[in-house]
């Protein structure tokens, strides 16, 4: 059970291995502060849900109940419980909010909401926090929710975890999920559920897997109930308590975009091209290699450039990690990669492909990212291309806050991906007037030890630690420059380094590292 939540406590702070002040206690639980990359190895058994017996469930496999309220009541909803959701329906999701509102209708208070990510469509959760239904959120916060948290209005501390970190927290018992409410684009009455079919198809359901295995109670919510068996099943009905049928789990137009679009900005196009040339010239692009790139405009443009270079060189990848999009699907169909190992599906082409092509595999944060696995895919990827809001001269990077300290993005798989053979951050040198390369990032989300290359339109900076990469691109026509030189050039353009905004001393959220230790604090703005 979560600790009793009362008035906002004063926070005792310690300085961790990256020099950041972090609280020793978060929402009543004692914390370990960041000890350096790979420095923390907890020793204990994994968390386990209560033992269940099949004789307590219907022999005919029909676990349907009439609505969410009934299901929540049957799950023993109480004040202070942890309710979880996945975010595969993205900004079209209707289930997370419906679950919390049903709980509110039943009079529940002080819930902790534990989504794998939140989206602007979940803005009404602010109202639930004001009504004291939801105590706080542990999960990504952006848009209005991010602003609410940043202004110190949330009662507890926000806890920001990576996708892998969320698995870690569930697996080692740092977070105990009382009730998981899983939106399912297809499901049968037994609770087998799948994401790649149905009117609200979203592709993979990987983010919900941990919840289905480790939560005390699991509710599957679907708008596409099929007769048993629902094939394929990504969520096993054997873990599911109740099934609820609703009219619609989400707005399909907002679940996946019809098309994902390459950036039109010439500057960002140039960055993408530099990244692709770097991967090629550094010798990373070779037969049987692997890479990962997201669905951002620069990442997509990078994929398009790399594809052309692979064609030209006659090189094939063994696997590509997604966020799948039309671009990766085209590469798969063209034979430029043997497999897509897909964590989440961004567009319709991706959804269709994952449903039809056996070489397009749905993966989970456990296979790809979890700290408590016996290895994971992230460290096996040769190169990954990511974004960032800020990078500092020691190559530490920020991905959650804007330079003014406001929460802006979740961590997603970003932290986990830093484990790749070569981590490239593709960022514009400045946004409007604000430089991206700074002396110290506002919030450390990734330690510089793991960040190898910063690519901007004004030059490419290689982490001096990576002598191998520096050697590999020696003599290439790429604009390789020291990071401080690029920084100085940008500051000359924008009129000096930014005046720092004075930040409060009051923590509003913490950023966890992939191992569960506290990497940095987000302060009240």
């Amino acid at each position: 059970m979560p600790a009793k939540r009362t008035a906002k406590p004063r926070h005792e702070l310690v300085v961790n291995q990256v020099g950041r002040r972090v609280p020793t206690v978060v929402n009543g639980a004692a914390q370990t502060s960041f000890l350096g990359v790979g420095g923390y190895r907890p020793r204990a058994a994994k968390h386990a849900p209560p033992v269940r017996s099949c004789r307590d469930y219907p022999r005919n496999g029909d676990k349907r109940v009439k609505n969410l309220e009934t299901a929540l009541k049957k799950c023993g909803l109480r004040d202070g419980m942890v309710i979880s959701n996945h975010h595969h329906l993205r900004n079209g999701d209707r289930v997370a909010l419906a679950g919390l509102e049903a709980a509110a209708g039943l009079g529940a208070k002080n819930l902790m909401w534990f989504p794998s990510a939140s989206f602007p469509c979940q803005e009404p959760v602010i109202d639930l926090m004001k009504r004291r239904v939801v105590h706080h959120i542990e999960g990504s916060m952006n848009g209005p929710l991010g602003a609410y948290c940043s202004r110190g209005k949330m009662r507890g501390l926000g806890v920001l975890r990576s996708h892998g970190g969320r698995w870690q927290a569930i697996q080692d018992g740092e977070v105990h999920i009382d009730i998981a409410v899983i939106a399912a684009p297809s499901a049968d009455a037994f609770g087998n559920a799948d994401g790649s079919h149905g009117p609200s198809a979203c592709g993979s359901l990987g983010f919900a897997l941990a919840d289905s295995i480790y939560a005390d109670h699991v509710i599957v919510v679907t708008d596409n109930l099929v007769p048993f068996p629902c094939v394929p099943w990504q969520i096993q009905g054997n873990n599911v308590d109740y099934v609820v049928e609703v009219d619609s789990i989400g707005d399909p137009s907002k679940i996946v975009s019809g098309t994902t679009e390459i950036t039109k900005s010439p500057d960002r196009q140039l960055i993408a091209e530099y990244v692709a040339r770097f991967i090629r010239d550094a010798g990373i692009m070779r037969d049987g290699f692997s890479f990962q790139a997201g669905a951002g405009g620069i990442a997509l443009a990078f994929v398009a450039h790399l594809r052309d270079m692979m064609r030209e060189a006659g090189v094939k990848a063994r696997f590509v990690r997604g966020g799948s999009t039309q671009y990766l699907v085209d590469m798969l169909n063209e034979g430029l990669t043997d497999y897509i190992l897909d964590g989440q599906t961004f567009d319709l082409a991706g959804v269709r492909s994952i449903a039809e092509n056996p070489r397009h595999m749905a993966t989970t944060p456990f296979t790809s990212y979890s700290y408590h696995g016996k290895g994971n895919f992230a460290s096996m990827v040769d190169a990954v291309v990511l974004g960032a809001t800020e990078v500092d001269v020691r190559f530490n990077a920020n991905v959650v806050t804007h330079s003014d300290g406001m929460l802006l993005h979740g961590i997603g798989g970003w932290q986990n991906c830093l484990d790749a053979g070569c981590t490239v951050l593709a960022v514009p040198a400045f946004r409007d007037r604000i430089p991206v390369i700074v002396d110290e990032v506002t919030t450390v989300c990734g330690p510089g030890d793991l960040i190898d290359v910063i690519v901007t339109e004004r030059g490419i900076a290689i982490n001096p630690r990576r002598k191998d990469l520096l050697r590999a691109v020696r003599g290439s026509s790429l604009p390789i420059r020291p990071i401080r030189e690029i920084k100085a050039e940008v500051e000359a353009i924008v009129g000096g380094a930014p005046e720092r905004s004075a930040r409060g001393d009051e923590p509003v959220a913490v950023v966890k590292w992939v191992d569960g230790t506290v990497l940095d604090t987000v302060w009240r703005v």
Partner: protein
Amino acid sequence: MATPKTRKTRARRAAARPARRAVRRVAEAGRRGADVRSDLWVSVQTRAAGGVDVALDSKVAAFYGESIRRAATATLKDFGVRHARVRIEDAGALPFVVTARIEAALRRAGFERASRAPGGAAAARPTERDRLRRSRLYLPGNEPKFMVNAGVHRPDAVILDLEDSVHADEKDAARLLVKGALRAIDFMGVERMVRINQLPLGHEDIDAIVPECPDLILVPKAESAEQIREVDARIRRRQRGLRREHPVWLMPIVESALGVERAFEIARAADSVVALTIGLEDYTADLGVRKTAEGLESHFARARLVNAARAAGVQAIDSVFGDVGDLDGLLAWGRRSRAMGFEGMGCIHPRQIRVIHEAFAPSPEEIERALRIVAAFDEAKKKGLGVVSLGTRMIDPPVVLRAQRLVATARRAGLIEGS
């Protein structure tokens, strides 16, 4: 008006008008709105007393709020304005943009600079008369967001445009912005061109721009040698008394049937003319024909232009290719253009730059052959032979000349290593 003396007089006169300055005056400049980026909107309302009061709404206020306020106060002081309400809505404008917009508002309110403008353009070296001019990237003169990173795309030149891309009501503001850009932005060795307006408006452009040392001025709607000489004379007049000597080359743009007929005299009008180019939108409109991707309708004009330019010993530069999405079409156009004798063309989007450079690059075979011819020529000269031969073939002097020119171009384009 260019001499220090008259400027001083003006400043003195401005200082002697306190009564007039006390009259409340209001003006605004710049742009605001959801889609505006890297720009700002400012309104200045002078008042009789109360000092300068700056109300700032900026997305970068936390980082550059003080810097923007300081820039506003300093600019007002330069214009002798001591009491005013200033409202600024900023969308991340760079410092040179901040100053240019505030200055535009002050000038619109009828103020003049009381102190001499801070001098000194970005330390750009003068460009060579026959430098490589394969690509020139158009930048709208009143749109700051494209300016700062134009150099990173490595065109041979940028054109800060004061003419067709700037609305008639914004010419004053664009002029100040272009001035500021020339002074503040490092275009990374790219040739810095400005397209001025047609005369007589172009005179004001010249007076504003020349002290910032542009490398080349494009003269639109060129129809006579007199026009070009007028521009040339105006530039020279404005250059008098400037601390730095910086040649300003001219590239007349022929855009009418009459201009085409007079292309040769236009190209020869002044020593500073280094290239002749053509504007096909206006030219085809003048002819009353449709502009096509194949360009048959302008074939004569373009051929005539090339011939006139060569006859006058200047470069012939082609128009722009308007369809930014059609890179294959652009490549085909560029290749035909090179085959006709053009040495470059304009571009309206950075993605066109590389395609144009590819289109205007001599092929490896061409370079290889030219190098052999040049080597044979050098060898013959060393031996004192009057006849150049390659293998069993005799090489005529014009072939040698063409080879030498091709080698020089290829070298400037970095297609030949070493000297």
